[in-house]
C-alpha cells in the first residue's frame, strides 16, 4: 500500500491500534478519578470553616436546626448531587455525597437527632465527640438511609 506521495504506508493499522489503546487508557482514567480520602475532606472543610468570612450585618443565614424538614434536606443533597453528577460523572457524585455527609455533621449536627431510621442503628454513635465546630466524630455509614451505601467508597487515606 502507498500513500498519495508514493511512500509506503507500512504499519498504519498498527499506529491506529496504538492510538486507539491510548484513547482507551484516557477513557479509563476519566472514569476512575481518585476519590478524596475522608481525611482530605475533613482537612478541606476544616480550612473552609477557619477561613469563613463573617457575613455582613443583616445578611446572616439562620441555621435550620432541629425543625428543618427532612425532605428539605434531601432536596438540598439532591441538588448538590445533581449539579455534580451532571458535569463530572458518577464518581464526583459519590464524592459529593461524602462531602455532604460530613457537612451535615459539621454545619448542622442537630439533624442527626431527628427521628429517622439511622437512629435505630446506633443512637449516639454518630454524635460521639462532635461539637458545633467539630468536623470529625461521626460515621458516614449513619447516612446510609439518606445517601445510599457510600461506605464502600470511603478510603482510609
Amino acid at each position, binding site marked *: 500500500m502507498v500513500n498519495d506521495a508514493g511512500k509506503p504506508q507500512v504499519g498504519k493499522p498498527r499506529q491506529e491500534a*496504538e492510538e486507539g489503546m491510548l484513547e482507551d487508557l484516557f477513557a479509563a482514567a476519566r472514569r476512575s478519578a481518585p476519590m478524596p480520602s475522608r481525611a482530605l475532606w475533613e482537612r478541606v472543610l476544616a480550612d473552609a470553616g477557619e477561613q469563613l468570612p463573617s457575613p455582613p450585618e443583616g445578611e446572616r443565614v439562620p441555621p435550620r436546626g432541629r425543625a428543618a424538614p427532612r425532605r428539605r434536606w434531601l432536596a438540598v443533597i439532591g441538588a*448538590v448531587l445533581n449539579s455534580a453528577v451532571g458535569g463530572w460523572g458518577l464518581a464526583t457524585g459519590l464524592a459529593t455525597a461524602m462531602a455532604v455527609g460530613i457537612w451535615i455533621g459539621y454545619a448542622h449536627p442537630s439533624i442527626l437527632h431527628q427521628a429517622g431510621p439511622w437512629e435505630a442503628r446506633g443512637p449516639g454513635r454518630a454524635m460521639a465527640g462532635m461539637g458545633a465546630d467539630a468536623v470529625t466524630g461521626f460515621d458516614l455509614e449513619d447516612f446510609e438511609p439518606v445517601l445510599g451505601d457510600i461506605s464502600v467508597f470511603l478510603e482510609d487515606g
Partner: protein
Amino acid sequence: MKGILDRALDTGREISDEALLAAYGRGERQAAVALAARLTPRMLGFAMRMLGGDRAEAEDVTQEAMLRLWKQASDWREGEARVTTWLYRVVANLCTDRLRRRRFVDMEGVAEPEDGSAPVSQRLMAEERARALIAALAELPERQRQAVILRHIEGLSNPEIAGILDISVEAVESLTARGKRALVGKLAPRREELGYGE
C-alpha cells in the same frame, strides 16, 4: 435571609462555581461544602496524575490549593476568571514546586513500570493499565504532561488550558500532540501485556 443553596432550589437554577465562591465570601458556610464537593475530587485527580500517582503528596497539594481559594474568596471579583481555571493553575504550580524539590531530594519519586514478563490477570488489568498510564505520563516533560492531562483526562478545552498554563492555544495543541506521540511511544511496547494484543 436564605442561603444560596436554598435560593437555587427555589428557582431551580444551577449554581456556578463563581456564585458559590461569592456566597462563601459573604459568610455562607453551605457554599463551601458545595464548592469543596465539586472541586476537591477534580484537583486531587489532576495532582495525583501530575505527581506520578503519589496520593499523600497530591492530597497535600489539593488541601493547599483549596486553602488558597478560601483565602481568596473575599477579594474574588466575579467575571475576571473562572474558579476552575484559577484553581487548576494553583495546583499546577504547586505540583511544579513539589517536582522540583523531588529532583534534589528524592530521585525515586516516580515509580518505574513493572516488569511485563509476568502475565497480568484479567482482574488486575484495569489497575495495571492505570499504573502504566501514570508511569508513562510521569516520563513526559512537565508542560506536555500538564497539557495532556488537562486535555485528555480532565476534558478541558484548548482555550481553557491555554488560560491555565498561560500560553497560546497553538502552543497547547503542540504540547498535547507531542505528548500523545511520546505516550504512544512509551506504551506501545507494553500493548500485549496490557491486553491490547493483536
